[in-house]
């Protein structure tokens, strides 16, 4: 029973309530980095990693804050944890892959202000998930975010080759595409809920 619920949380977060396409979290990097496939993949992985770290830390923090009756500090504490996790990822990436570090540029520190990351922490608190459920939720969130980013990058790479009216270029077009992807993801609606 326990395992089934974890699986359900994971599948639901990846597909039917995908972070980007159904809950509108993390749209800035989604629109900003999805231009090319080769930056979309590492961005997805980096964000997923930060999400996992942030989820674990914020779970521990929430226990601590609840114990000392300091819930009003929750938001500030979460943000501090996320900022440190991003700093960590940034340092690791700079050491092991400087080229990638430069390619992601400003979007790497901006993971701090990615609502998807803070969203994971806040939603898992709001839904009272235990540790295992939080991990499943954050993994699902990360995979879902990467999936949306990669799908979008693929479509946009193809679109660069097509002939469009010049007004359509830029964010408006990306939003229309995101709308279509979101419609497609709504088709997953029934998965994991039944039973």
């Amino acid at each position, binding site marked *: 029973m326990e395992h089934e619920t974890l699986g359900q949380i994971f599948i639901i977060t990846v597909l039917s309530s995908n972070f980007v*396409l*159904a*809950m*509108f*979290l*993390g*749209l*800035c990097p989604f*629109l900003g980095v999805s231009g090319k496939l080769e930056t979309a993949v590492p961005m997805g992985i980096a964000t997923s990693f930060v999400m996992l770290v942030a989820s674990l830390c914020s779970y521990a923090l929430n226990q601590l804050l609840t114990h000392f009756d300091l819930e*009003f500090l929750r*938001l*500030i504490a979460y*943000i*501090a944890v996320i*900022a440190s996790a991003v700093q960590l990822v940034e340092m690791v990436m700079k050491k092991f892959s400087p080229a990638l570090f430069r390619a992601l540029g400003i979007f790497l*520190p*901006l993971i*701090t*202000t*990615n*609502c998807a990351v*803070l*969203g994971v922490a*806040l*939603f898992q608190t*709001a839904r009272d998930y235990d540790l295992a459920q939080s991990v499943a939720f954050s993994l699902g969130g990360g995979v879902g975010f990467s999936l949306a980013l990669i799908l979008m990058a693929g479509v946009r790479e193809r679109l660069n080759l097509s002939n469009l009216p*010049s*007004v*359509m270029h*830029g*964010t*408006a*077009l990306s*939003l*229309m595409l*995101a*709308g*279509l992807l*979101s*419609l497609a993801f*709504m088709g997953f609606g029934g998965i994991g809920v039944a039973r």
Partner: protein
Amino acid sequence: MSSQPLQASNMEQLLEGIWKQNPVFVMALGMCPALAVTVSAFNALGMGLATTFVLICSCTLISMLRRFIPREVRIATYIVIIATFVTLVDYIIQAVSLALYEALGAFIQLIVVNCIILGRAEAHAAKNPPFSAMVNALGMGIGFTIGLFALGSVREILGAGKLFGISLFGDQFQPWVVMVLPPGGFFVLGLWLLFFAWLAKRKEAQHGA
């Protein structure tokens, strides 16, 4: 972001946020709350006002403290200041309107990571005196609220046939349910952006001729 922030008068600065640099339609910032909460005009207004409040308070405070904040830790400082005001707003909304609080949910707390606020703090408040920062923040806040309201009202009218919960078209109207679902948010915002891009293009063409 603005081309000559020092020379521009206060009125111009106010208008800049509302129209020329409208955060939603022109700069495409703060999309996440813009799409997530705008299923109805009422939610959109609530979110817009909450964001405006946080924007004004944090920009004013940051501007007052701008000489005391070391450059190296400025982003962390800004975030903590913003998070403080968001916590405040969170509790205020919970006290004033529980219905709105439940409708907006975690998105009130997500105001912290709204790029508009950090962007304003970094681009304007950190370099200008408090009053100018306040005016600029007010303009941006109003612009953001207008943007949200434009999205929310279109989505509510098409998706539910209502505005502020008042039925507009009578019983025969078949609501476009898709408009209040997530894809509708993307479509409506995409169309608004398209409209503004078209306006800008037309103006450009007129100037050229």
